[in-house]
């Protein structure tokens, strides 16, 4: 493996943004297969097409996920990447690391793989990019024995759960996302490592409706922090925003005119539930839908209420196949309590899985099963009473699927008796 001529790759070393090309070249001094990564990339840039083959089932004994097989379609030209499998490591909650564990991982990956990584994959895993089949078992052994670290999910498994930073460093988090994510990850190790579902299933945990981990768009089961009492107001700090002593939006705007609470907060409230009485800010909390805008703009003055928990939403996914879906609100509010090991959440998860594993078709995400079988049926399965919060608006067609037991006298009728009263 030696250096290839890569003029197009080299062009991507210029410019102010960090260059993955410079980084690959830097690593190539220790991991010569990086020259072949660059060589194959250059080939793709010339040919405008990928040079990775389709699939290849590889893994470690006893697991059905965590490793994704990958082979080059130009193995003779680029032998360093002939086998180039991906290893998914389950990232720690909110992606904190000690340098001690990272350095050990660096040493291990330089020994057992290409030295290239993704921090992180889209689902959240720490991705080790590129190794040979023979290295997988030794890598897994060292990973579990020396680093006490396990693989994440792939395939029709529970995918590696992910969370926002939550209460660990955010004043808006309404539950401890790190704790819940870790607890669910540990409880469902079997579901992460051994495929038993119709298709992938994702959990994501966001501490507030700002949803920094995009749970509402990307997870089959989204746990999004919220509160159900009054927003806490510090009126002295409200005055400091109005006077200009506090910078609005936490100082997120480097330009703009003087802060105008009417224009920037009150008028942008989607429910119009805020107003000023003299220099006191008033909120009609019963009308508030907890959109977060006012809290975002005045973080020193406004905080979520103290009766905190989470809204549970289900069925989000990217477009393949029936089109993209955002998650549907199912449980308006649940408490998340570490003392009972988040029992309420566990009960919901297991009810959904039981139903989906029985009713979901092969490669059908939960959101698609929900659409196919309908929200009323899904709510009935979960024993959730339908409430107006489940819909944006009531249906506009009259085609109700009445069930026989709902109709007085049932559906059994005698047409002859009918004709006696109503002739043809």
């Amino acid at each position, binding site marked *: 493996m030696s250096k290839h001529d890569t003029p*197009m790759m080299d062009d*991507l070393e210029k410019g*102010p*943004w*960090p*260059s*993955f090309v410079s980084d690959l070249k*830097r*690593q190539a*001094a220790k991991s010569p297969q990086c020259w072949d990564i660059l060589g194959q990339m250059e080939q*793709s*840039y*010339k040919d*405008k097409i990928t040079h990775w083959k*389709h699939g290849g089932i590889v893994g470690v004994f006893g697991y059905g996920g965590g490793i994704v097989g990958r082979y080059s379609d130009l193995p003779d030209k680029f032998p360093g990447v002939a086998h*180039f499998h991906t290893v998914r*490591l*389950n990232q*720690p909650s909110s992606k*904190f690391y000690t340098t001690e564990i990272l350095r050990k*991982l*660096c040493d291990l990956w330089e020994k057992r793989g290409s030295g290239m*990584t*993704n*921090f992180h*994959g889209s*689902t959240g895993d720490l991705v080790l*990019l*590129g190794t040979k089949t023979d290295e997988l*078992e*030794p890598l*897994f052994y060292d990973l*579990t*024995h020396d680093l006490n670290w396990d693989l994440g999910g792939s395939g029709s498994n529970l995918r590696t759960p992910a969370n926002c930073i939550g209460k*660990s460093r*955010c*004043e808006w988090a309404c539950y*401890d996302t*790190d704790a819940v994510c*870790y607890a669910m990850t*540990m409880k469902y190790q079997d579901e992460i490592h051994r495929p038993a579902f119709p298709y992938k299933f994702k959990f994501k945990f966001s501490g507030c409706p700002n*949803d920094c981990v*995009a749970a*509402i*768009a*990307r997870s089959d089961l989204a746990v*999004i922090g919220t509160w159900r009492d009054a927003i806490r107001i510090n009126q002295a700090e409200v005055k400091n925003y109005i006077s200009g002593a506090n910078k609005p*939006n*936490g100082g*997120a*705007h*480097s330009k703009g005119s003087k802060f105008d609470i009417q224009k920037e907060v009150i008028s942008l409230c989607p429910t119009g539930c805020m107003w000023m009485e003299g220099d006191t800010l008033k909120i009609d909390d019963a009308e508030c839908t907890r*959109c*977060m805008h006012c809290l975002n703009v005045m*973080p*020193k003055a406004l905080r979520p209420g103290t009766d905190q928990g989470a809204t549970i939403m289900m069925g989000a996914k*990217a*477009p393949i196949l029936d089109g*993209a879906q*955002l998650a549907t609100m199912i449980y308006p509010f649940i408490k998340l309590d570490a003392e009972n090991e988040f029992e309420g959440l566990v009960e919901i998860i297991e009810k959904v899985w039981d139903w989906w594993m029985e009713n979901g078709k092969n490669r059908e995400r939960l959101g698609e099963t929900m659409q196919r079988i309908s929200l009323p049926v899904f709510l009935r399965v979960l024993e959730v009473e339908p409430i107006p919060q489940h819909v944006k608006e009531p249906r506009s067609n009259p085609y109700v699927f009445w069930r026989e037991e709902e109709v007085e006298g049932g559906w059994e009728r005698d047409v002859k008796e009918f004709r006696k009263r109503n002739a043809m």
Partner: protein
Amino acid sequence: MGYDPQNPMKDRITDIGPPHYEGMMPKVINENRGKWLYHEIVQPGVLKHVSETGAECYTVRVGSARLLSVEFLRETCDIADKFCDGHVRWTTRNNIEFITDSEAKMKAMVEDLKGRGNRFPVGGTGASVSNVVHTQGWIHCHTPATDASGVVKAVMDALFDHFVSMDLPAKCKVALACCLNMCGAVHCSDIAILGIHRKPPMVDHDAITGVCELPLAIAACPLGAVKPHTAKNSAGEEVKTVKVNAERCMFCGNCYTMCPAMPLADPEGDGIAILVGGKVSNSRKGTAFSKLVIPFLPNNPPRWPEVVDTVKGILETWAKNANKYERIGEWAERIGWEKFFELTKIPFTEKSVDDYRLAYDTWRTTTQFKFTSHTK
């Protein structure tokens, strides 16, 4: 010791999960969990969080390429050892965050990072372009319609000034997915760069028998365009295979995912679509999908100039015209999409009129619209 290939199940450890987060976190985080009072952005890329205990922490946010070498990670560790007591984290959007408990260390760190070439750009906070969430592309994926890392590099080189400053009306999240599978989940981004195919799959009658389960390949098509078929392979043998009704194909590539004998990638057919106006946050108007405004731009490596110019054009038109706090989708909705197309000078085509499932939901069913250059 270590792994013994003769005895692979010896001392096997499984199902231990990730390292516990508390062991990974710095002291100031573990001591103040649940006690944070507020935060402010002290300069672009630097957050200050204040706890009710009086403790403070400073976070220096740094953009990264996501595709990182262990040599780079070691340098990252050096920085974290020097300023952050040996801790570092990453955000959902591929930024590195260095957290320290004093302003002096923060300032020294920011100075230090400036001396490390283009490797550690500080920014991505507040009303800025945040780092791009993206997929693998040609570096590692078997189904892409475009590259990921190279397109992102070219786009972020062009938008760099907006990453290191906070001069936009609101935050802008750019995301890239290199095919419709959307591992990058770009369907709710302010600006989505999406790899698309435009040629229907070919059928490799020589390979299909060995690598495909035909019923799965047939069932994979959401439009019923893949049908059972009998054909001759190149050895002249009759084989059970499939055929594709090209007129019904919407180029989703799901058949190729299920059947490697149905490749559809193509240098001329593949390229990039641009979608805008999506949003994940529930603030103000709530969530929104990204909408397709440009159906196709060619793959033009190494710097995809058509894509870069388009993204920059949309961003700058929005920056010039939107109200404070208005994300791209909120702005487009307020002024009307007809005005969006007029202001951005993006030609409107039939490709932006939905004809898939639930299409009717996007058709205009009111006499309220604006007269623009489009109405002649």
